[in-house]
């Protein structure tokens, strides 16, 4: 067999990303809801551009105004513009969600990878730890920890900001991810392609990062989307119990929890933030569906069999 000169035109590398985008675009619902999510993100990220009033400007003589041309979503209990608060509130909610989710995914992936890959006592210790975390009712630990973190005077966990909330939610949500990643890793660890990598002299680190991690990525990403939705809802629950992000910074959660008194008299105060949570969570779920399909490397083949 002849030497092949390099001159031969090698097929263009079709990036995983492009393939993924292509697959994703085929999922109608996912695309539709992603557009909505994108719209919300644009609104939320560019909130200052879309607001007519500052989210904190009060007009105490115009409290509880129903939606009107002036105030698209009405005003709240302090006469603040609901539209402005809603789009600004999304910033913190989404950031809390993202942050909490990243923390959870980070810890969970690390624990899961190490545990699944090395097995033995590493696995035993880490899994026991996971079990312990799983055996304490999460919400309760959340409450105790939020209070506890406020007690610590850490500059980056400055009370009143969303950091401690996100840290605590994230720090208590990684167990599912860890188990998932561990299971997947254990399965992959014995796959022939990992053995093959060993045979050609690939070390543990490279095997973990190059061979195992990319293959557990898709379940992780799907879990991440669900975790994001969960974190947003958890934040709102914490706000309800008085442990959420501090006022007057609006989040969808604390906006909702402040409205209980006015559910009948000023329903718009509850409807709009509730609707945003609702839209985002649905959108994220569909996004997750779409990602799951798009990230499956065997997807095409399965479809044809």
């Amino acid at each position, binding site marked *: 067999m002849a030497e092949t000169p390099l001159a031969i035109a090698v097929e263009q590398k079709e990036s995983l990303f492009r393939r993924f985008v292509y697959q994703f675009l085929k999922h109608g619902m996912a695309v539709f809801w992603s557009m909505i999510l994108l719209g919300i993100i644009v609104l939320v990220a560019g909130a200052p551009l879309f607001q007519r009033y500052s989210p904190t400007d009060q007009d105490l003589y115009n409290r509880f105004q129903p939606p009107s041309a002036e105030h698209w979503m009405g005003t709240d209990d302090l006469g603040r513009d609901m539209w402005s608060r809603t789009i600004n509130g999304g910033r913190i909610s989404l950031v809390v969600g993202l942050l909490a989710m990243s923390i959870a995914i980070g810890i969970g992936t690390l624990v899961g990878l190490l545990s699944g890959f090395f097995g033995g006592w590493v696995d035993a210790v880490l899994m*026991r730890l996971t079990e*312990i975390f799983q055996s*304490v009712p999460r*919400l309760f630990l959340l409450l105790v920890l939020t209070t506890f973190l406020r007690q610590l005077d850490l500059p980056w966990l400055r009370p009143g900001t969303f950091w401690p909330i996100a840290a605590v939610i994230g720090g208590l949500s990684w167990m599912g991810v860890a188990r998932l990643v561990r299971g997947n890793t254990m399965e992959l660890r014995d796959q022939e392609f990992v053995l093959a990598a060993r045979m050609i002299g690939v070390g543990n680190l490279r095997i973990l990062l190059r061979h195992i991690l990319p293959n557990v990525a898709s379940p992780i990403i799907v879990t991440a989307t669900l975790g994001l939705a969960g974190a947003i809802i958890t934040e709102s629950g914490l706000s*309800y119990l008085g442990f959420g992000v501090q006022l007057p910074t609006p989040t969808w959660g604390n906006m909702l929890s402040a409205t209980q008194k006015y*559910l009948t008299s000023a329903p718009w105060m509850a409807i709009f933030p*509730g609707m945003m949570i609702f839209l985002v969570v*649905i959108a994220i779920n569909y996004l997750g569906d779409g990602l799951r399909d798009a990230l499956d490397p065997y997807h095409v083949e399965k479809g044809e069999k």
Partner: protein
Amino acid sequence: MTQYILRRALQAILTLLVISVLIFGLISSVPGGIMSAYSENPDFTQEDLARLREKYGLNDPVPVRYAKWLLNVLQGDWGNSFTSKRPALQEISDRLPNTLLLMGSMFLVTLAIAIPLGIYSALKQYTFFDHLLTTVALAGQSLPTFWFGLLLIIIFSVLLKTPDGKPLLPSAGMMTLGQPFNLLDRLRHLILPVSMLAVISAASYMRYMRSSMLDVIHKDYVRTARGKGLPEKMVISRHALRNALIPIVTLLGLDLPNLFGGALFTETIFAWPGIGRLFFDSAMKTDYPVLMAVLMVYSFLIVASNLLVDLVYTVLDPRITLD
């Protein structure tokens, strides 16, 4: 089998021990406590406060307090509530049945909704109905529980009335006060709190059921069952369902800790005298004998139910043997 249970039990004890240390440490480092109720009152003298501190054993360092607590617990004494002065265990046993009733009903309703709909959705994959159910399920998952609960109250006990002007469903409580126990009345009181949680968790279970069912109905043995000429109903109910339920059981086990969290919201909103509320109140008062007892009971329930789930596995799936 016995050996397995024994091992799991031993592990559980270790787990619980570690949890107790963690929680005790956390609780002790959180400010607030029984003394704040008294120190607020200007009429309390310094001597009064010192006497009370001594009485509650708050003068000991935390490890000593923990050791004392543990020693007492090992002897079956979980201590007395700081606030009500009643044995912590009694506080719990007064409320635990209520929570279990609520959670149990919720579980049943959840499964009663989720399983048939999940199956139906799977069998009618990609039909309009399937899409509709999926969307409704997602909607259910995205509702914050407390918000949904209040909404239910407004709809079913403020807006909707019986012909004689009474609320259609009672807004809160376990029973109509001042009446003797009556099953129908208890059921009426269960409807709203149970639906608040059940609708939300049924949503996710329905989705799990759907995908689990979809996994199963493409399995060879389902084809085998059809090949044997079994009617479709039998194929689904006898061959597919039982296999599809196995992953659902895992989920139930994993979901349990979160359910207790849900109980807190339900009990707060619907004035249900359960253990979630007891936890919340005692956490707010740092009533640590009760707090510890509640958390340990919860953790125990979770650990125990995980074990139960594993045992249920062996019933559902003969391939799994425990050793």
